[in-house]
């Protein structure tokens, strides 16, 4: 009996000691991000700074994973097996899949309990993360298209060294910038590339013009396609005509990023993540401006990086929100990576205005339009790309392409 008591009490003391040690350990957090580009290095620095400031309390491990289907699958598996990351970056197009597994708050909870200035967030992005009065994610930054232009090319062509602002100017620029420099009969400098390289840009340029024309991708109830419309058709026709009618874009797909970098292309639309890459290119004299109004109104396609916090233990959730708030409050640092913050106070600050290129992107914040949130988006985009490819290659005319695409999208939406 005494022997039992002795070992029992030793055991108890040990357990108490160990748990005391465990309690003193900092909370471990996994932070999953898709920042595989140069912006990843910036995020690493920010996370290191956070860990320094919160030494002993919270320790964040940054994960940089390739985005796309695998990223979402990994997250789904992690949630299913009960080991989700503390904070995960998701796009508005993906995060709604996980709504049931994410922590949400009311506006008041965020302000009162966590001191997060919710009203400081740009309103259209806050709308994108609010459902039934609950906020499901803390936005980190947003991105949209901007028009990159080669200043040297513009000057050489006798154009004003600024971006075109509307359709007339755009066409004038594109025509003057498409040049056969060495007179060998083949064009060495193009005004535009309508397709090629990263396939999503092909969609994004079309979305922008579709939205500018006042059109929409899907019906309100998301049961049918709405892009087979005059707005959609004229948008696709515009880019197709640049190739086949105007001759200012090459008839075969080629990567505009590469081409712009080496001076073979004068104008192209892209996201803010290219800023640092182009800055590093020696001899490239470039600038960026808001996307011209090629349609009726000023709108631009956009997407965002949302910080989502999967449901987990209270202390991990607490730590996760601390991280999210810190990153948001410090998003000026993140802007230097070539991103656009969504905190109005930061966007309106002097320091941010000093980041000229990001500032140009941020000018578009008030009229960034996001895509409808639907589970079938990836499939729909794949169908659109397939038919648009055919239209760009001249195998189908734009109207036909959109008609077939709409038929298939209707079919997809009907089945699920």
């Amino acid at each position, binding site marked *: 009996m005494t022997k039992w008591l002795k070992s029992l009490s030793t055991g108890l003391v040990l357990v108490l000691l160990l748990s005391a040690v465990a309690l003193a350990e900092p909370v471990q957090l996994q932070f999953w991000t898709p920042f595989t580009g140069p912006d990843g290095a910036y995020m690493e620095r920010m996370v290191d700074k956070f860990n320094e400031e919160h030494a002993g309390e919270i320790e964040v491990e940054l994960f940089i994973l390739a985005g796309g289907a695998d990223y979402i*699958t990994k997250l*789904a598996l992690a949630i299913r097996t009960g080991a989700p990351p503390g904070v995960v970056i998701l796009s508005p197009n993906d995060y709604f899949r996980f709504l049931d597994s994410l922590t949400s708050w009311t506006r008041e909870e965020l302000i009162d309990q966590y001191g997060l200035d919710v009203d400081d967030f740009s309103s259209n992005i806050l709308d994108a993360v609010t459902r039934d009065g609950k906020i499901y994610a803390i936005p980190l930054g947003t991105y949209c298209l901007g028009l990159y232009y080669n200043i040297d090319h513009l000057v050489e062509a006798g154009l004003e060294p600024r971006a075109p602002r509307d359709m007339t100017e755009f066409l004038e620029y594109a025509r003057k910038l498409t040049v056969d420099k060495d007179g060998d009969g083949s064009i060495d400098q193009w005004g535009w590339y309508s397709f090629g390289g990263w396939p999503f840009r092909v969609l994004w340029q079309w979305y922008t013009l579709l939205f500018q024309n006042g059109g929409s991708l899907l019906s309100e109830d998301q049961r049918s396609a709405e892009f087979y419309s005059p707005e959609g058709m004229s948008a696709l026709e515009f880019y197709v005509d640049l190739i086949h009618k105007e001759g200012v874009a090459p008839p075969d797909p080629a990567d505009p990023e590469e081409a712009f970098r080496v001076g073979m292309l004068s104008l192209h639309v892209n996201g803010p993540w290219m800023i640092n890459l182009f800055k590093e290119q020696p001899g490239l004299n470039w600038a960026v401006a808001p996307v011209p109004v090629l349609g009726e109104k000023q709108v631009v396609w956009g997407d965002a990086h949302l910080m989502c916090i999967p449901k987990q233990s209270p202390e991990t959730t607490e730590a996760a929100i601390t991280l999210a708030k810190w990153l948001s409050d410090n998003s000026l640092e993140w802007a230097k990576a070539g991103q656009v913050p969504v905190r109005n106070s930061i966007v309106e600050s002097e320091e941010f205005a000093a980041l000229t290129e990001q500032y140009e992107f941020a000018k578009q914040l008030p009229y960034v339009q996001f895509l409808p949130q639907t589970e079938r988006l990836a499939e729909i985009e794949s169908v659109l790309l397939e038919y648009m*490819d055919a239209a760009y290659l001249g195998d189908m005319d734009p109207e036909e392409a959109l008609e077939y695409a709409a038929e298939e999208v209707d079919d997809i939406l009907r*089945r699920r």
Partner: protein
Amino acid sequence: MVQSAVKGMWEPMAVKKKRRDLTPFFFILPFMVFFVVFILIPLVHGLILSFQEWSLLGEPIFVGLENYIELLSIRRFKAAVENTLKFAVQSVPLLLIVPLLLALLLNKKFVGQRLAQNAIISPFLIPSSSVLLLWIWMLDTQTGMINQAFKALGLPNQAWLSRQGSAMGVIVFVTLWWTAGYNIILYLSSLQDLPQDLYEAASVDGANGWDQFWHITLPLLRNRMLFITTLQIIASFKLFDQVYILTGGGPAGSTRTLAFYLYETGFRDFMFGRAAAVSWYMFIMIAIFGLLQAKLLTRWLGEGV
């Protein structure tokens, strides 16, 4: 008393029955574990999954044959079947014959034989991602090495991977370049086992190189060719890497194969039940083609296989 007497009577016979030797079992145990965990269980799970609807988050729902029936009316699935067959029809004969010719060549002694063997065979040892990334850079329409070379020779730029006509052809060619080595090794090992006295006797009888090839080499390679054809058919039905990296299913879906469609359905669209049904359709197709070709090829290459 009676018991012990009876026991004594039976004991010698009990001793004759040796305890079953379990040693062989332990030798195959590691492989059996691997097989059950990574092949058998997923196989059965996949079959069950094909009768369910599951998006990874949430519980699977039983839907019976719905996935199988749905697929038959989905345009992309039918296109994927067509594209897979197109690829198989082009690549299987090529990967049967070209490696044979190369193996015959590499079997002869010449200066640089070793170097040629290594150079021609080794691509198959390089992992797909490295090989394909290399090719996609080389094939780029504006900045790729191949078109630069064409330009230098005065030939027009080709849009290798973005024209519906050439994209599949390019995939076939890259596959041939990459995987021929494996078949060449199989052929070389067979060729090197061929009895030389048959050839000596033949040349004494006045048979030339072609006759010797047609009447001696080929018949003796029958088994090997059957084996390679079977492997090749199975491999071509599973084409994925090249599509994923070189074309993403394009242009205009002309290179979307069944394996790629399966990947999209499961991992991009999160419809795992339907994806599982695709995989079982693939199994049925491979089984049918495999059996067909075994019967036909056996008959064509002669009896005694």
